[in-house]
């Protein structure tokens, strides 16, 4: 009986780890949507490029695992943020006056371009990022991988920091103001263009951080972004696009459901079940589980 409970807790922790990665990525999509009302479908590939930047930085930084892993995290965050900023400057800013569906289609183009870039430069091979936390920790009678604990703790810290930033700093409050009413924000003298840039940078940084955290476990490969993207995206829709707590809750729930399903049932149908549930929610409650009733329009 003891063993079964241990197994369950391990499955649960696995779900939380994946769930936090989903949440960090979904947060970026939701923040961008809040500001521009654009469902930024290329977001997952910022995560992927961040992972590659981390891989490159780690291989340059040398053999000291601690140093190379920190370098990997910093590079991933920086590059993902940069890709986010560039996507806004080069693509979305040009389409501000166009209907939102044009931006959505442009995002698909960006998704293809970024993935094609990674495929052309790095090839389809799997790459490793090594972590200094490559050992097991004994918690009670439970053996947990240290990397998983690192992911849990740093994700929680990041999300707490994000909330502090949004609620307690001038820039964060300005960001919320733009999300609520771009015209109103401009009237009180907020530079909406600058705030939008900051939003893209934050969204990118979150994705890059998530990538650097999970890469030692899942490896780095070109379609890692597309795989995550779809899930992160639907999490946002289910949580209510633009709804920050909704994105976090949605991410954690999907991670746990997937992990429990994979831990106890036929793993073959894992993706089908996940997407089936998501599409059912999308159809039955298009405003999202936590959203207001205006999203259908």
């Amino acid at each position, binding site marked *: 009986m003891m063993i079964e409970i241990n197994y369950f807790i391990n499955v649960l922790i696995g779900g939380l780890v994946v769930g936090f990665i989903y949440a960090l990525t979904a947060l970026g999509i939701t923040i961008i949507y809040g500001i521009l009302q654009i469902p930024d479908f290329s977001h997952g590939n910022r995560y992927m490029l961040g992972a590659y930047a981390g891989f490159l930085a780690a291989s340059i930084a040398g053999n000291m695992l601690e140093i190379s892993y920190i370098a990997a995290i910093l590079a991933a965050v920086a590059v993902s943020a940069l890709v986010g900023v560039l996507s806004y400057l080069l693509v979305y800013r040009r*389409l501000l006056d*166009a209907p939102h569906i*044009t931006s959505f289609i442009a995002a698909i183009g960006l998704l293809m371009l970024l993935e094609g870039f990674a495929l052309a430069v790095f090839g389809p091979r799997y790459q490793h990022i090594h972590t200094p936390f490559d050992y097991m920790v004994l918690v009670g009678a439970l053996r947990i991988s240290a990397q998983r604990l690192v992911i849990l703790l740093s994700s929680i810290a990041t999300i707490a920091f994000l909330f502090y930033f949004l609620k307690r700093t001038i820039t964060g409050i300005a960001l919320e103001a733009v999300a609520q009413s771009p015209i109103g924000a401009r009237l009180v003298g907020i530079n909406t263009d600058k705030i939008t840039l900051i939003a893209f940078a934050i969204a990118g940084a979150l994705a890059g951080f998530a990538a650097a955290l999970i890469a030692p476990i899942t490896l780095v490969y070109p379609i890692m972004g597309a795989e995550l993207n779809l899930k992160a995206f639907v999490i946002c829709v289910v949580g209510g696009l633009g709804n920050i707590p909704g994105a976090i809750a949605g991410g954690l729930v999907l991670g746990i459901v997937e992990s429990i399903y994979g831990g106890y049932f036929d793993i*073959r149908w894992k993706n089908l079940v996940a*997407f089936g549930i998501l599409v059912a929610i999308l159809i039955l409650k298009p405003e999202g589980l936590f959203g207001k009733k205006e999203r259908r329009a």
Partner: protein
Amino acid sequence: MNWKIVCPTILVLALLLPLTGSSYAIRISTLFIIYTIAAMGLNIIIGYTGQASLTQGAFYGLGAYVSALLVLNGWSFWSSLVVAVAFVAAVAFLIGLMTLRLKGAYFAIATLLFNVIIYEIVDKWDEVTRGPRGLFGIPSPAIEIGGVSISFSGTQNFYYLMLAVLVIMTVLYWIIIKSPFGSIIVAIRENELLAEYAGVNLTKFKVASFVFSAIFASVAGAFYSAYIGSIFPDITSFVNSFAFLTAVIFGGAGTLAGPFVGTAVVTLINEVFFTLAQYTVLIQGIVFLLAILFMPKGVMGTYYSRKAEKGGELPKRAIMGKL
């Protein structure tokens, strides 16, 4: 451009193409025709009804799979084609009913999810579909007229078969767009609320055009499987949906000739970069993004806009505002 001259000229040139003796040109042209049929269908739902569907690749792949499975189980190609089209139309009807009350990007995301779900089923249900091992040895279609049997196994025969199919599908496409049905879906695209107040049953017409688009995709898919002779689950992936979308957007959504022009470009890219397969996605992405940024109405849409600026007339169903 005077279409009464251009269309027959292209058709005659197409009929004469095998005279060049280049089996490479014939092969590419056959693939071009197959992709064009799927892109035409997508144009009905995206260009004319204004709903950004991302399930076209799955319908294409599903058409290929259903017809190939039936043919491999002893059915004739023609009866399996009919069953495949009917099956995909039924699937599209159900998906359309569920998703078409969602608007804009929500609809796009829901259709993309259904594409992934169809892919997962084809990929994982290997008792029926043989999964990632794929289907091999799909026989070519044949036809029997008055005791004489004609096989379409040769490259050239299949090319003429596809040319005939293309003409039939183009006429069908033309009828759909030019009919009263066409003007109603364009009304929905231009102003949904107004169309609804004018008494249009939105769901009925949106679902109908969604089903039409799926029918075109499944026809294309069924002929693809018969032509290539082997298919894998990848054929249902959303990568194909994006490729058809690129063709429609680049060629000009909401213009009759758009899918032809766009598919020509996409097919060309695929062929030019065939030996450099790792660059295909990158190039496609760049073309796609440049098109949406600098030519959001696509080649044909921009052509008509230029003409309109010089005092010419816009075609009746062209997109008036911005895309």
